[in-house]
């Protein structure tokens, strides 16, 4: 079966805490973390400069197994990986994300009445050398 060129559902979502693969994954987001510093002064009413000075990649995971992320100590660092599978699970259609030097920042859990309990974990990341993005891509 050839690849669909569409991705759906996440597998192999791992962060080194407890050396386990996170399960019951609802959603994973990786962000490039771009942003601009803006400037206005004197009589300006609009920004007259916007420059991208910093990039702060990161990730967010939503899971229906809150215990797995609520048990991680904020500040824990490691490599976060996740595979966005081919929509029909064809070989050669998945995208693999690797966030090096990922830092677990926070997790929030909730469960509205009549709904399944969820938790959302957020990660930032640092670059070892300051110029190489900690977010790497490949395909499988």
């Amino acid at each position, binding site marked *: 079966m050839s690849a669909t060129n569409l991705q759906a559902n996440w597998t192999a979502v791992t962060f080194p805490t407890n050396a386990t693969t996170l399960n019951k994954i609802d959603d994973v987001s990786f962000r490039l973390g771009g942003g601009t510093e803006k400037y206005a002064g004197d009589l300006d009413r609009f920004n007259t400069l916007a420059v991208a000075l910093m*990039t702060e990649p990161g990730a967010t995971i939503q899971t229906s197994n809150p215990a797995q992320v609520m048990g991680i100590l904020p500040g824990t660092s490691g490599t976060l990986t996740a595979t966005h599978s081919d929509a029909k699970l064809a070989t050669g259609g998945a995208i693999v994300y*690797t966030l090096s030097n990922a830092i677990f920042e926070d997790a929030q859990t909730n469960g509205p009445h009549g709904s399944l309990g969820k938790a959302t974990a957020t990660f930032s990341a640092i670059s070892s*050398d300051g110029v190489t993005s900690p977010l790497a891509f490949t395909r499988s």
Partner: protein
Amino acid sequence: MADARKPDAVLVPDSMRQGDRSYHRIDSILRVAEPILGLDPSAGRPGHMRAVQSIAPPDGGFYYLCTGNATGDTLLFPKGHPREGQQRYRWEDAGPLKLGYLVEEATLGAS
């Protein structure tokens, strides 16, 4: 003079990125780098790419640093290293690409 060794890394310019799907865009970069690095995704040895954004690359462009490792393999020696801020690779031009050879003290797969 060209190095007889196989490169340890390839810098592929962003201008070579092609395709209208995420998978194709990643593939368009890695399929350039993988044969040069001796990698074969069909054999379970894919390349990995990460953006390099700085005036630090050899000519200040926007490149993807491609190697066989998902982690480590930074462009420069890391913060805290005795050679912090210096190039981990010696770069050779190969058309639009730059071929990188680890310098002494640098280890493949490490920062």
